[in-house]
């Protein structure tokens, strides 16, 4: 089995390096093909491993070599394939294979074609390390690695100011979280003496809660960064500057879910500290609705999808926080499929309309882009969680979890979010594909994407449809080998049915509302005139609650100004000036006193005599004081000194 593990791990690396060879040369079709094949082989290897794991085979655990070893610290390059990591591996390899193939078409006309594949495969490699590592340090390698790749890929079109800006924003914001992660790792090491998952979690059982809490908090801070949880969420929307396949792979299916993975991976830790779990859940719920609201009004399809991703991540954290780790993981998987599909579809649309993103400039594309329309619609249905598509089984499950655990606030919030989700998803569907044509007026001549791109997307479509009812049970069987097998059943059948059907109806209703509102031929393009647009709520949402503005004004600018002050005022005017001042002072003393050497003989003689006299008077004073020391003391004592 090891060799499959190595294939799964290193095939992406090989692919990346291979593509890297051609970065300097103009576009080569075969680079893309080879890369896709290599990633596909990784997928195949993972599948084999999956069957192995499903077949109840023992966990594959290898130790490649030592990385760091000093003092009590021992960190190997160790990799493990267990029920959790195999899930992630499957998701990662599958989606990335599809995205690679898709990109061959999507990046067709881009000069950076080869470079793109190099980066993309590099990302897959780091992601694999992240999910397969058997210790926190290895996880951190992958953690930073995906960060680096996402920096490269967001800034892929580096000539665009916005792109590079977004790239840096993403990197730095993630760095903030990574610090938390790092501290978490330190805590783990100094308290458990190891960074290996098994050893560490075993040792945590007998640590005081306070320490555990701190560990949990710091690790979760790390997770917040990668999974773009509030308040570190702004980078995700801006990350949409990158090419669409990137958004599909990194910012929907895989990297952003790393945070969820971390929490699931450390379930044994979080099981010990339910309070932190509750906090995570609440934050998740909040982010879910918070993001959904922002998605309602946004006029950029990719950003809308990005926000929906954010909100779905909120769902996952809600589940994980409530201790339903397998549910979280399950939703992670299902979500990966339909969200990637959604993104790729969006990519098709952009392609068709030469990178136009405003849905209000589209409409009626359904006629020309049937395939895409079908895919995106179904994906949205899945996202909305309509029976029997994937979303229903994964997402409604989370609702149940919340309900059963009597966290009714969280439940309500999530339920509400479900409605919003349905609404904004179909808002863009309607705007893009239905209603009357608004784009030809703008001189667009849309065309369907290449066939093979659609073919490449089809597996995702299928999975988005069937993943739910086919996988749920076997998946449950598998993953609960490792994770707490918490079954969630509403006690009374009646209540259950009411809940489910109620949710469904609510969702469907909101879908129809969306259609009704945005398919009407008389839809007016928002131009800042309508009453709704001037309402406070709308402004708040369209400006993303003014959070980016806040960051710009109150963090970025002050930092820049402070730096300048520190340099020009403190460093130059104070620190350095002091040093030069001392030197200057000495020199100035020389300049000012050199006239003592007037060169005039009688002055010299005067100096000499003066010196003698000074010494003489000192001597006399001293001599007298000795001579009359007795008298002096008596006088002083007389004076009462």
């Amino acid at each position, binding site marked *: 089995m090891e060799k499959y593990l190595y294939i799964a791990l290193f095939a992406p690396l090989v692919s990346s390096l291979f593509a890297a060879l051609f970065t300097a040369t103009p576009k080569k079709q075969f680079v893309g093909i080879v890369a896709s094949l290599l990633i596909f082989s990784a997928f195949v290897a993972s599948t084999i491993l999956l069957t192995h794991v499903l077949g109840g085979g023992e966990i594959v655990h290898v130790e490649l070599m030592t990385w760091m070893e000093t003092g009590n610290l021992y960190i190997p390059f160790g990799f493990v394939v267990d029920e959790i990591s195999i899930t992630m591996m499957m998701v990662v390899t599958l989606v990335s294979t599809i995205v690679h193939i898709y990109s061959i078409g999507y990046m067709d006309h881009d000069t950076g074609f080869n470079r793109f594949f190099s980066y993309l495969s590099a990302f897959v490699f780091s992601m694999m390390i992240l999910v397969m590592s058997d210790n926190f340090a290895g996880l951190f390698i992958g953690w930073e690695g995906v960060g680096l790749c996402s920096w490269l890929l967001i800034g892929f079109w580096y000539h665009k100011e916005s792109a590079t800006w977004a790239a840096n924003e993403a990197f730095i914001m993630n760095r903030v979280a990574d610090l938390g992660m790092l501290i978490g790792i330190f805590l783990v090491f100094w308290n458990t003496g190891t960074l290996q998952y098994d050893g560490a979690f075993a040792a945590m059982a007998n640590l005081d809660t306070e320490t555990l809490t701190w560990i949990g908090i710091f690790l979760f801070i790390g997770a917040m960064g990668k999974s773009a949880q509030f308040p570190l969420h702004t980078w995700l929307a801006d990350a949409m500057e990158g090419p669409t396949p990137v958004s599909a792979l990194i910012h929907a299916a895989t990297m952003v879910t790393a945070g969820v993975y971390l929490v699931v991976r450390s379930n044994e830790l979080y099981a010990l500290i339910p309070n932190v779990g509750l906090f995570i859940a609440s934050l998740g719920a909040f982010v879910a609705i918070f993001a959904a609201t922002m998605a309602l009004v946004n006029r950029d399809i990719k950003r809308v999808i990005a926000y929906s991703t954010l909100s779905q991540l909120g769902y996952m954290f809600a589940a994980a926080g409530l201790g339903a780790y397998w549910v979280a993981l399950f939703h992670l998987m299902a979500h990966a499929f339909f969200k990637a599909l959604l993104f790729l579809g969006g990519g098709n649309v952009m392609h068709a309309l030469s990178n136009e993103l405003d849905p209000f400039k589209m409409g009626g594309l359904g006629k020309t882009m049937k395939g895409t329309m079908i895919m995106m619609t179904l994906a949205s249905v899945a996202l909305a969680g309509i029976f029997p598509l994937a979303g229903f089984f994964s997402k409604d499950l989370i609702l149940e979890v919340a309900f059963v655990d009597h966290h009714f606030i969280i439940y309500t919030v999530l339920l509400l979010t479900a409605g919003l989700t349905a609404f904004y998803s179909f808002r863009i569907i309607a705007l893009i594909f239905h209603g009357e044509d608004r784009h030809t007026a703008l001189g667009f001549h849309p065309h369907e994407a290449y066939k093979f791109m659609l073919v490449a997307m089809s597996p995702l479509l299928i999975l988005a449809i069937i993943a739910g009812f086919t996988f749920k049970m076997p998946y449950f069987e598998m993953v609960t080998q490792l994770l707490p097998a918490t079954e969630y059943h509403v006690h009374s059948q009646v209540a259950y049915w009411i809940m489910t059907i109620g949710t469904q109806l609510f969702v469907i209703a909101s879908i129809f509302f969306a259609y009704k509102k945005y398919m009407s031929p008389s839809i007016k393009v928002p131009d800042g005139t309508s009453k709704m647009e001037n309402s406070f709520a709308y402004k708040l949402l369209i400006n993303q609650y003014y959070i980016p503005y806040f960051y710009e004004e109150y963090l970025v600018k002050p930092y820049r100004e402070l730096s300048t002050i520190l340099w020009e005022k403190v460093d130059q005017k104070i620190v350095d000036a002091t040093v030069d001042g001392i030197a200057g002072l000495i020199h100035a003393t020389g300049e000012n006193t050199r006239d003592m*050497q*007037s*060169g*005039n*003989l*009688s002055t010299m*003689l*005067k100096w000499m*005599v003066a010196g*003698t006299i000074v010494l003489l008077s000192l001597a006399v004073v001293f001599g007298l004081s000795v001579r009359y020391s007795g008298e002096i003391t008596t006088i002083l004592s007389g004076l009462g000194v």
Partner: protein
Amino acid sequence: MMEIGLNHYLVLSTILFTIGLVGVMRRKNLLLLFFATEILLNAVNVAFAAISHYYGDLTGQMFAFFVIAIAASELAVGLGLLILWHKRHGSIDLDTMTSMRG
């Protein structure tokens, strides 16, 4: 009619010496400057003579003789230099010799 003792001699020599010092400081004329230094030395001679008489040994007087000798030779050198300077600058005023300063 008071008896003149050692201290009087010492005081005298001190006074002379002080006069010499003042002269050294005040005089701008090289020649007078030399006189001043001579006064210094001779002030000391007085004291030496007195003290050696007081102790009744000759060391002090020996010292005095040596001082006289040295004073003489000093004066010789000094006058030589003085003459040289006068030849070149036609002046023996101290203020003429300030080419080096700082």
